[in-house]
């Protein structure tokens, strides 16, 4: 029986602020899961600590609302132990790109088949609005006593430098686009990063919903707002690195992605920036060492036989150690 949206809802009160972009992300995630129609119990969902982190409690699948900055290694641990689960991980920008950025870089190096979505709101929401690593230099959002003293990190560029094989950006209030992007990310065989532009009406009074939708810049003729966000897809942008491409071709794809990643301000591209189909996934690599990895995974292989006797028979190891 196909999954319904209502199957994916919990009864927990959604305690985000009115107008928070997280509502859009929640709705999109539920749409994506419904449309992918993966049995609920096959999904494991992770989140970090921050406003974003509560998303797990609102989605009716198993998982863990983890520690600040550590959602990724928890999620990776689950996926490594049971490669047959579909693992989705949500992080905050403070959480995933601030305290947790090391795990991000190293996850890129591994290319484990899972999806990592970052709620990019430019602030530390849950601790009351300090600058997050994606807030631009010199910007002064509502609750900052002084303008931001740090340069921002560019998550797309960082993902590229870390070897991430699927890099996309979407927007919390374009739920259709976001749901589709999440679906692509889930279907990608490898580590997929989705940066989600997420308005935080409470603390980020610069990159607001109105700003993203261009309400401050209206078409002089139609008087209609000119959205800042536009879709890479609509430009015929091709992010794919395919099997058999040369290193040079692959590098051109990276350069192109990087170029797009620099755009900000009046033109903010969303969509898939880069997708590399040619790099082996971590599971492929493990299979060279452990041929039964997918059929008798760490989580699913028998460890005991009748009455609790160990399944491991170490006689041959003892041979090497015995005197």
């Amino acid at each position, binding site marked *: 029986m196909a999954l319904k949206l209502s199957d994916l809802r919990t009864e927990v009160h959604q305690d985000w602020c009115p107008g928070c972009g997280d509502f859009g992300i929640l709705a999109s995630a539920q749409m994506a899961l419904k449309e992918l129609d993966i049995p609920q119990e096959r999904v494991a969902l992770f989140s970090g600590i921050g406003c974003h982190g509560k998303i797990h409690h609102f989605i009716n699948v198993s998982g863990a609302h*983890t520690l600040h900055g550590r959602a990724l290694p*928890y999620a990776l641990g689950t996926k490594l132990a049971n490669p047959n689960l579909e693992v989705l991980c949500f992080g905050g920008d403070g959480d995933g790109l601030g305290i947790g950025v*090391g795990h991000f870089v190293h996850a890129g190096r591994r290319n484990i088949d899972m999806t990592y979505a970052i709620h990019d709101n430019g602030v530390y929401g849950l601790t009351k609005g300090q600058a997050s690593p994606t807030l631009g230099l010199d910007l002064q959002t509502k609750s900052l006593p002084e303008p931001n003293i740090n340069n921002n990190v560019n998550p797309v560029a960082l993902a590229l430098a870390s070897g991430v094989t699927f890099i996309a950006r979407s927007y919390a209030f374009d739920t259709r686009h976001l749901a589709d992007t999440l679906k692509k990310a889930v279907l990608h065989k490898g580590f997929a990063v989705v940066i989600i532009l997420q308005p935080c009406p409470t603390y980020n009074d610069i990159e607001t919903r109105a700003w993203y939708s261009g309400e401050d810049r209206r078409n002089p003729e139609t008087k209609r707002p000119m959205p800042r966000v536009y879709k890479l897809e609509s430009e015929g942008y091709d992010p794919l690195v395919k099997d058999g491409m040369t290193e040079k071709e692959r590098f051109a794809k990276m350069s192109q992605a990087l170029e797009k990643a620099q755009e900000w301000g009046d033109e903010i591209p969303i969509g898939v920036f880069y997708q590399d189909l040619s790099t082996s996934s971590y599971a492929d690599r493990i299979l060279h060492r*452990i041929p039964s990895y997918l059929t008798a995974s760490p989580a699913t292989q028998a460890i*005991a036989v009748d009455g609790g*006797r160990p399944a491991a028979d170490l006689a041959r190891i003892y041979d090497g150690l015995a005197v």
Partner: protein
Amino acid sequence: MKDESFSWVIGGPQGSGVDSSANIFARACAHGGLWVFGKREYHSNIMGLHSYFQVRVSEKELRSPVDRVDLLATFEEETLVRHAAEVVAGGGILYDPAKAAKPIEEIETWHGFAKEHVLERLKGEGLELTVAGVLKEAEKRGVKLFPVPYTDLVNQLSAHYPEKQLSKLTRVVNVVAVAASLALVKFDRAPLDDAVRAIFGRKPEIAEINVFVADRTYEYATQHYPGGLGRTLTTRASPRRLFLMGNQAVALGKLLGGCRMQTYYPITPASDESEFLEAHEVFDAVPAAKLPDGKGSILVVQTEDEIAAITMATGAALAGTRAATSTSGPGFSLMCEGLGYAGINEIPVVVTLYQRAGPSTGMPTRHEQGDLRFAMHTGQGEFPRILLASGDMEECIYDAARCMDYAERYQLPVIHLVDKGLANSNSLVPIPDPSRIRIERGGLVQSLPATDPPYKRFAFTEDGLSPRAPFGVKGALMWNTGDEHNEFGHIDEDPENRVKMMEKRHGKVLLAAKQIPREEKVNVFGPPDAAATIVSWGSTKGAILDAMASLAEEGVRLNFLQIRMVLPFPDDVVRDVLSKAKRRISVEMNYSSQMAGVLSERTHLSMDTEIVKFNGRPMTHNELHDALKRAAAPGAPQRMVLTNGS
């Protein structure tokens, strides 16, 4: 102290093959049916700084090192100068006569107090401040000198293998030293050859060269020193045993105990364990397990740091895997937060903590038991954990397996305390008996009947244990969170819920305390009516048992309470044993007598004497013998600091 054992020390710069020499020597003795105990001391360095290995050999079981050296095997100046004074009268020194002229000042790899003391001593005795001076000093004390012209010998022998590079053959000096040593004690040649072949097992050609070198050296030494050392080692029959280091013992225990994923970040002395596991990622399984090709597997993952190590292992545990990580102090420091998360979410995850000399980076390759309190109280707030401390290799095996089991049975993090003294020592252990290991998967839920009420991962139950489903079970949806939560795992700040959840979690350790049998919590050795009772934990066990035996021969009867399970603390049995004690003596490798503090916290009893050592070197049989003798007598000082070792 009467001591029949034979103590052989070999030293040299890190990376020059000292370890493999010692390995050959120890294995040769073990092949010859003797008991051996090997201890490795080295600097935090890859090449060049001094390291040495003591192999203690006896016909009786041995569990600790001694300070005395019977035969010192050296190639270069530093080992000779550092250790010559440890050689007993009647003992011997093997050395390269070409090195005798070296002025001690010019040993560049050596600085500090020990060097100054040697220089002062020589000056005091009016001896030359050279290696020769040290040799003279030793000779005056009745130490026998055995010059071995290593270079000539090796050159001669290499003539037989013209096709080999000499650089490959220089390594054979190690075999030369071992063979010469064994010749001096007139040990059989056959177990020596066996040992050489076992060590070079993977490269048969190299093995044969080494066997050849061993045999020729043996002949050379027998010929040149027909009297030998004046002591002999004799082979005897013995059952098949494992010749193990502590980190291997832990790895075997984990495999037996069902550990199927191990995460780690490299750190001394823990990572040897993970590398051993990695080298055995695929292993045989009993047929009844019906695994593909009859193989089980453990996934070993090198992480980016220890935060990732503990959190990844925890993620694996959530998926239903028995998962563990191994580390040492600095890494454990980074795991505090992750441990707390496992605690509040009742996730079974095991951390093997290899203690080494702290604080901070400390002395990474030296021994200490300094992390007891830290391991008891890691992490903010209060969550239950089980904390086990192993005392020897055999306990390492079974405790490692048990840790995996306790974690899952009681749904909590388990910390297994071992230490550098265990990790880098060798001893002989009976082949593990799988029937002594039981795997109980606790309340693990593998499927749910469709009619059930909604699954509650953290359901309140009588004993505090809730049904635990791994991710992936139909109908068993659950939420985990570091926040206080309700029965489903959703955040809940209600004060009443909070109290119930705290009591539920802490209740589980009461249950564990009740269910786990006494023999898994403590060992009690020695006669009940002893003159004094020793309390200790961890790898001091070996030296204590050895000292008790030698003291008994002198008529000093002690008993010994070894605390193996630190949390939940075995209050009753400890109070019982200690309150009957005539005198109470704690023995610990740390500065502040941490266990003694725990004992007075839990039992309100204090120690009559606290014996501590914190210079980075394990307690030796003889120093503990002396210390215990003094401590067992009335009027002993309240605190005794042991300082032996080099």
